């Protein structure tokens, strides 16, 4: 690496990479926050794609180095215990991803009090 001092810290570089283009940003969806959530989802989709590609590279390297045979992962037969573990892992994963819907359902059923009512109750003299 060169000795050049860019006067930019690592944190500044991270911030600069994502800096906004000058000019008012248009929002298209009826709700700005929905569009922001879409933006987050698309970035996660990209990062998932990057991860899949990294795994594919890893698999190629393992084959090249003779650690595994080509197609060994595609033909891999997990044991009964492994299948059961993966099923639970998948259920837990989906529950994490869709936690907001689970909690919304619970709230529909629970008739929870709002914070102001609770505070009013707690501050009654």
């Amino acid at each position, binding site marked *: 690496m*060169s000795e050049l001092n860019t006067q930019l810290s690592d944190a500044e570089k991270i911030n600069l990479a994502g800096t906004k*283009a*000058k*000019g008012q940003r*248009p929002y*298209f969806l009826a709700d700005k926050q929905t569009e922001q959530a879409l933006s987050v989802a698309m970035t996660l989709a*990209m990062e998932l794609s990057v991860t899949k590609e990294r795994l594919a590279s890893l698999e190629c390297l393992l084959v090249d180095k003779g650690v595994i045979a080509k197609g060994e992962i595609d033909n891999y037969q997990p044991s009964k215990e492994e299948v059961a573990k993966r099923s639970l892992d998948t259920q837990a994963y989906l529950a994490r991803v869709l936690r907001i819907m689970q909690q919304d359902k619970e709230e529909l059923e629970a008739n929870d009090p709002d914070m102001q009512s609770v505070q009013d109750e707690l501050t009654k003299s």
Partner: protein
Amino acid sequence: MSNSNALPSWDVLTKHDVFPVANHDELARLNFLTHLNVHLSSQILPGVKTAYETQVKPEIMAETGKDPSSRHQVRQHMLNNGYFQMWSALRRNTMEMRHQAARAQVLGQIENIVDKVDKACHNDANLQLDDNVVVPPNVAMVDIHCQPGCYYQEYFENDVTVAASYDLGLFVTTAGLLGALSDGGGQGIANWLKTQHPDFKPKRILDIGCTVGHNALPLAEHFPDAQVIAVDVARPSLRYAHARAKSLGLTNIQFVQANAEDLRQYEDGSFDLITTSMFLHELSHQSMPKILKNINRLLADGGLNLHLEQPQYAGMDVYQQFIRDWDTYFNNEPYWGPMHELELKQVFADCGFDPQDMFDVGVVSKVDEKIFGKPKSEGEDYGRSPVWNALGLWKGQNAKISEKVA
């Protein structure tokens, strides 16, 4: 499995000395974003037209009793259409992701790149910088095509982040159709001259608004005996362009920091070829006549002036105008629409050119088809496709020459 639909990887791009390198995940990001752009234009964009025809157009007709009359009317109605909203949100966001990905990649190695650029620029007469050049309002008011820092911002002394980011990201936005050096436009011009005007041997060539020089280099390469002057207002772009050209072995091109509204350092009639590539749409009603008058003054009798652009709106149906106009409002290209509705021949005539000298001709990106495939007309990503309309003129020739697509 057939490979015919596989897109080229960003990795096939020619790696000149100052080109940013990509590690595994950076490359995967650029390729993902390239695929996302293609998916949006080939799979999702056609639905925008369906939404227009089945929902929005009938709505406008019910409201007004008439066919939609302007791209602005179509846009106002489309902005309330859910499908258009979602496609637009995705397209805008993809552009922002591409800039972040490219900038993060460049900033991660900026010390190395700047070091190489500094060495290439040291005491070299082929780079002429001028601190008195002010970035004009048409470039400064917003960051054009949502590129943070536009072409000219420097984040530290001698920084070239914006230029390197632009160079590496052109592939992503155009899905690779500009070729290994993202120079399909310049190659298109060179190829057109080679096949249609093999006897034309310009001695001095001026390329205006050259940015990183990608479309000027094919001219320097194609006319090795010519001296090419490439001008731009953006200091980091010129420094990067110079280092880029030098590393590609081209020494007959000089990069000059200048505003094309003021080229008084060059004599009347001192150039026999003057080009711009995707430049006119980044000007303004104030700057364009000044630049055209300069071109008229600088162009030698019998010389060629050629402007590569996307086609003008005149004669297109309102939907096509509307969709081509998306970048005007939603991708920080505020002069795109106003420029594309100008009667350009009249504008040129008002600047002293003889309308009899002028012609239009199609120019197609010239790239290695073995790597990049043939330009497709289907699934065109309007405004970003590598098929241009060149507006040209042979000064004082009264369009004696009938022009053909190369």
